[in-house]
C-alpha cells in the first residue's frame, strides 16, 4: 500500500479534514459536538455518509473518505475512541498483498 490515499485531497476529503480540524482546534467546538453531534455536523453541510461516519465513530469509514490520517488520529484520541478499537478497525482494511516491506 502507499503512504497516502490521495496525493491531492478531493473536496470530500477536504470537507472531512475541515470538520475534524475545527472540532479539535476551535474554542467550544468539541463541547458543541459532544452536546449535540447532529447539530454540530449540520454546520458543515456534509454529505450524509460523511456525517454518519463521524457521528458513529466509524474509524474505517472515516479513513476510506480520504481524510488526512493525522486529523483522523487526533480525532480518535480526542473523542476517546478506545485505542484497540481504532487499531482493529483500520487493520481490518489491510490487504496483506498490498503490504510492501520494502
Amino acid at each position, binding site marked *: 500500500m502507499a*503512504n497516502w490515499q490521495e496525493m491531492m485531497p478531493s473536496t470530500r476529503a477536504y470537507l472531512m479534514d475541515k470538520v475534524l480540524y475545527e472540532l479539535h482546534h476551535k474554542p467550544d467546538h468539541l463541547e458543541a459536538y459532544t452536546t449535540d453531534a447532529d447539530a454540530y455536523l449540520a454546520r458543515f453541510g456534509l454529505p450524509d455518509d460523511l456525517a454518519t461516519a463521524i457521528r458513529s465513530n466509524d474509524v474505517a469509514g472515516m479513513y476510506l473518505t480520504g481524510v488526512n490520517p*493525522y486529523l483522523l488520529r487526533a480525532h480518535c484520541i480526542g473523542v476517546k475512541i478506545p485505542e484497540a478499537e481504532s487499531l482493529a478497525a483500520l487493520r481490518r482494511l489491510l490487504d496483506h498483498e498490498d503490504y510492501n516491506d520494502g
Partner: protein
Amino acid sequence: MAEITGIYTASHTPVMLNFPDNIPAALKDEIFAAYKAMGDDFMAGKPDALIVLSNDHLHNFFLDNFPAYCIGCAESYESPIEHWLHAKRRTIAGDQAFGSYLLQNALEAEFDPSFSMEMVLDHGSLTPLELAGVDPDLPIVPVLINCVQPPMPTMRRSYNLGKFLGQAIADYDGVERVAILATGGISHDIATPRMGMVNEVFDETFLSHMESGDVDATIRYATDFVHTAGNGCEEIRMWMAAMGAANGAAFERTYYKAVNDWYTGIGIGRFRVS
C-alpha cells in the same frame, strides 16, 4: 561566526507521552534513557541556541494555507497545542533575531519559506525536547517542514534547505554556539491499516545509508522507498535537512528499535560535527 556544536536526529511520537506503558517497562526505560543521553550530549556542547527541525501535524497549519517550509520568528512558543496530549503546558524561549536572520537569508538564497510569529508547538517538537531534558530557557528557532499533507517538498529540496541552514548558521554573528535537533520518522504509519507494523527493513537500510556517508544514495533511497515505510516516515525530510546541515560530517546511530506497540521505528543518531 557561530559554531555548530551538535546535530542530532530523533523520532517523535505522542504515544511516548500518551500511552508509554503500551510497551514493557524495561524497554520504555531503555528508550527514555537514550533520549536523555542525547540531551546530555548536546547540552554538553553548551549551545546558546537550538534549531528544531520538525513538522506541524495539522495544528498550526491547515489545508487552507499550508506552507512547505516555515521558520519561526517568535520570542517564545507555547506547547503543546494538542488538547489530548499528556504533557504539561509550558513556554519555550524563542530566538526571534536568529529566526529572522535565517528567514531573510533563506529568501536571499532563493528558498521561499513562510514565517510565523505565533506558533503553539505540537508533540513533534515538544516530545523529544521533553524526553531529552532540554532546558526550556534555551532559545529555539523552529524550522517546520510539511511531511503530513501531500503534495510535499522533495527529500532533495529538504537536504538542500539543510545545507543552506548549516552555512547560514556558521555565518551568523548573533550567537556563538548552536545545536540542531531534527526530529521525526523513522518507519511508522499514522491512522492507516498498517499502523503498528513498523518496516524494520526500511529503517535498517535507511540508517545504513546515513552511516555510509553517501548523500546521493541516501536521498535516492529515502525518495524511492519512503512509501513502503508509512506516512509518518515522510518525516525523514528532517533527517535529510540535518544531513545537509552536517555538510559531510559522519553520521552514527546511537539507538534504534522497531517498537510496534508504539507504532514507530524509534531511531536516534548524531553527526560528528565537533
